């Protein structure tokens, strides 16, 4: 276990998260209004969302299916009967004056997400529950000096609140957890995980204590909406709590806000001011009953998830864990990789690794340069596989292949067409290479002499000159072999 060490001794950090993940669904949790991001203010608002008198919530069963799928994807238990409750508080962007949530009887209990700790060891972060609830609208305070505006487009959108046990021990683990959870949700297509659009945000509970003693009092940091901010907020919060405890103070149970502009957390409300939400069973909705057959049906739709895929890529193709987990982090990347693999004439661990290197290295840098994701790649898996095949069969060298890939990216032509058009095919004739080398050696008699006198690093110089003469097309292995042979002859 990793501890923080200060002059007074060791501290253990305990972190628990409440992740709010917006459910992917066309309609809201209790109304038919659209959930599309980026609509004009108050465009996607039904009478239910605006809490008109007499309206009633009706459960969108697709949202429930999505939450069930999520629960199954994180190894949770789907409760066959769960309940909705009203959480009462007044705010301008909460039209009903209460949020419909699940309090005592959530849809999903238990489950876990596996992360790697700093030693690369797998660690289970247990989940307490996942419940389904409706989101609030947005208050906009910066459009007028005297007025606030309300946008109810988000009001009523389905959220899953994913609550962990206090199993996380560092900011790094928190980041790893969120990344892994996000990856799973994206695999499941139950949440797009776009933190910058607010479709995933977290409340972070942080406490510290001396190893071997009871857990400390926690502070809750509300609504942090990027992994970077979460890491920063935890860092600040841990330092703040250590400072308090080391100077003899006590940490108060309180709710804090993270200010991204200075990386600090500030007091939002103390425990004494904690709101009494007066939860009670939602009388407008009967208990949510889920049939086992429905769960079984949903289970069949769950794809291979990142952890399973990582192991398979390692086992089946002999990929190193690092490469495999990187490829498996996004389903689209993994799909791309496996599609490319399928187009290779021979799949052995060497080719699989070469493909991984080319995809994660060269292709990703081209994608990044154009701000594209793997699905928008100019180079199809089949084309990339063709390029790898050309390398593997010594038609072109790796160095030339980099240029070919760039041309492929810009022209969308296939690798073989480019090689043919530009005459980039490798020179693999020993006679041609030998001829070329002999002319190089003839050009530089002084250097040949120096080499022979022991300046062996000039070997590379000769190779370079020969490459220059052949515009890089000489097969490097052959070139090396022949040059050695020529020197040995003498």
């Amino acid at each position, binding site marked *: 276990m990793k501890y923080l060490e200060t002059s007074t001794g060791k501290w253990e950090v305990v972190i628990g998260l409440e992740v709010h993940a917006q459910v992917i669904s066309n309609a809201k949790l209790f109304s038919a209004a659209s959930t599309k991001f980026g609509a004009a203010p108050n465009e996607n608002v039904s009478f239910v969302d605006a809490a008109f008198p007499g309206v009633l919530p009706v459960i969108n069963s697709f949202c429930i299916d999505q939450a069930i799928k999520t629960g199954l994807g994180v190894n949770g238990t789907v409760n066959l009967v769960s309940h909705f409750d*009203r959480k009462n508080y007044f705010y*301008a962007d909460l039209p*009903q*004056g209460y949020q419909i949530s699940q309090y005592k009887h959530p849809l999903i209990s238990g489950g876990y997400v596996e992360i790697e700790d700093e030693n690369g060891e797998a660690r289970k972060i247990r989940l307490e529950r996942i419940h389904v609830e409706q989101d609030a609208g947005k208050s906009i305070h910066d459009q007028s000096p005297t007025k606030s505006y309300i946008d109810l487009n988000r009001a009523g959108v389905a959220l899953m609140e994913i609550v962990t046990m206090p199993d996380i021990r560092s900011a790094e683990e928190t980041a790893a957890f969120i990344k892994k959870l996000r990856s799973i949700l994206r695999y499941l297509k139950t949440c797009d995980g776009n933190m910058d659009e607010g479709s995933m945000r977290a409340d972070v509970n942080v406490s510290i204590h001396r190893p071997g003693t009871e857990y400390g009092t926690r502070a809750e940091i509300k609504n942090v909406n990027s992994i970077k901010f979460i890491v920063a907020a935890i860092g600040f919060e841990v330092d703040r709590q250590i400072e308090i405890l080391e100077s003899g103070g006590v940490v108060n149970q309180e709710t804090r806000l993270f200010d991204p502009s200075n990386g600090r957390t500030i007091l939002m409300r103390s425990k004494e001011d904690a709101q*009494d939400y007066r939860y*009670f069973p939602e009388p407008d909705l009967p208990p949510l009953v889920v049939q086992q057959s429905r769960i079984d049906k949903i289970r069949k739709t769950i794809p291979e998830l990142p952890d399973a895929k990582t192991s398979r890529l390692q086992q089946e193709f002999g990929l190193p864990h690092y490469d495999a987990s990187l490829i498996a982090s996004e389903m689209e990347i993994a799909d791309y990789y496996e599609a490319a693999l399928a187009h290779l004439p021979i799949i052995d661990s060497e080719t699989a690794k070469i493909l991984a290197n080319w995809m994660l290295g060269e292709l990703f840098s081209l994608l990044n340069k154009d701000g594209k994701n793997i699905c928008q790649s100019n180079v199809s898996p089949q084309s990339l596989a063709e390029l790898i095949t050309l390398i593997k069969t010594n038609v072109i060298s790796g160095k030339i292949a980099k240029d070919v890939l760039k041309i492929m990216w810009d022209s969308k032509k296939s690798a073989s067409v480019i090689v043919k058009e530009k005459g980039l095919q490798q020179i693999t004739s020993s006679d041609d290479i030998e001829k070329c080398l002999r002319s190089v050696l003839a050009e530089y008699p002084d250097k040949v002499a120096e080499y022979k006198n022991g300046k062996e690093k000039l070997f590379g110089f000769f190779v370079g000159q020969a490459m220059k003469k052949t515009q890089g097309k000489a097969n490097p292995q052959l070139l090396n072999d022949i040059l050695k042979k020529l020197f040995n002859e003498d």
Partner: protein
Amino acid sequence: MHTLSIYEARRGLLKKKFSSVELTKCFLDRIRRFSHLNAFITLSEEQALESAKKSDSRIALESSTGALDGIPLAIKDLFLTKGVRTTAGSKMLHNFIPPFESTVSQKLLDAGAVFLGKTNMDEFAMGSANITSHYGNVINPWSQGDKKLVPGGSSGGSAAAVAGHLCIAATGSDTGGSVRQPAAFSGIVGLKPTYGRCSRYGMVAFASSLDQAGPMTKTVRDAAIFLRVISGYDPKDSTSSAESVPDFESFVGKTVEKIKVGIPKEYYLEGMSPEIEAAWKKGMDIMRSAGAEIIEVSLPHAKYALPAYYIISPAEASANLARYDGLRYGFRAAGTKSLIEMYEKTREEGFGDEVKRRILVGTYVLSAGSYDAYYTKALQVRKLIEHDFTKSFKQVDIIMTPTTPSSAFAIGEEPQDPVSMYLNDVLTVTANMVGLPGISVPICLDKLNRPLGLQFIAPHFREDLLIQSGYILEQNANFPTLKEITI
């Protein structure tokens, strides 16, 4: 013409003895003539005459007509009516014009009914005398001389309108007795269906687990006709039931021979007036003579129904009424400078005392520290009462009790403390707590010439039994229907 029942008016219309327009005008005239009863908050004359005309042409063409084609009705002002102001008796909604129609009123419109207007009611249906309405109290048409009687509540406007022949029938809503109690006070029939029988969509919510729409009519047969129209599953209300809807009218006139009528001994309230007891006995005699068997049953936890009701209903109301914040519709206090101030002043000025009292009680019983002592206990009581009824309905088919512990009282003579006022609901709330259907049927007048009613309570979705028994009671009670308003 103004004393016609739905059944009679429908026959007259189909036989073209009179037109719907004539009928509608007759009632609109009477509403104006007796406007001092204050039974209506908003009239929809134009819409009424327009739909009457359409109804007449349907009838003339002998094309398909609905069960209520051309029948002028009054709608409690808690049902949202598209384009017609709906206030729920509150200042909070004084300017609220609904953009959609409630399911119950839509079903009535689909059946061809003509809407005369929106009836007065206790504010947000919280009251038993129609004296909490922001639009003034309603006068019971049975009032004589100087004593102005209350019509009961909260559906007081609907009760007065039906009893005073200002409409043929009306909708009410019943959370703790708000259909049956005013029906008893006003000498008409009021039926509260099983919870879930009618959709609550488009009804201004008071206590969601208790609210149920119901017909207020001149006869039991009318209640049967009306109930069939407004019943049925509604995908917009997740608590509405898919239970099939029988032709309730077909139970009119069916014998009650061998039917077991339960008399709960706990309903003999301490200090109950001998007149109420006599009325109850009259009911028993009628049922016995008609061949029914009278059996004493016990509902030992019924006495806790009222206190539990006054925990659960305010709790739900405190949340249901949170949406009235002045932001999106309805009343907003002027000149406020902050969000909190806007909330406070809007709700301070927009709600009346009784509504505020219940919001406070509801907020209190749900707060940490009192939740278990009040709300959880009340839910337990609710379960116990349910068990009581389940047990009783193994012994008997139907239960008969008085509807109210007294007859209508005079305005100004109502109980001054709220808790005594709440006692008006003591005999009716049990049905709401368990979701059972109940009907109040007029049985006789007391010495002061004020109507008294008896209540039948049946098992879930057995409104047929209410119609069957209620009709026998009605036919043999010889209740002297009010012929004309004298006040």
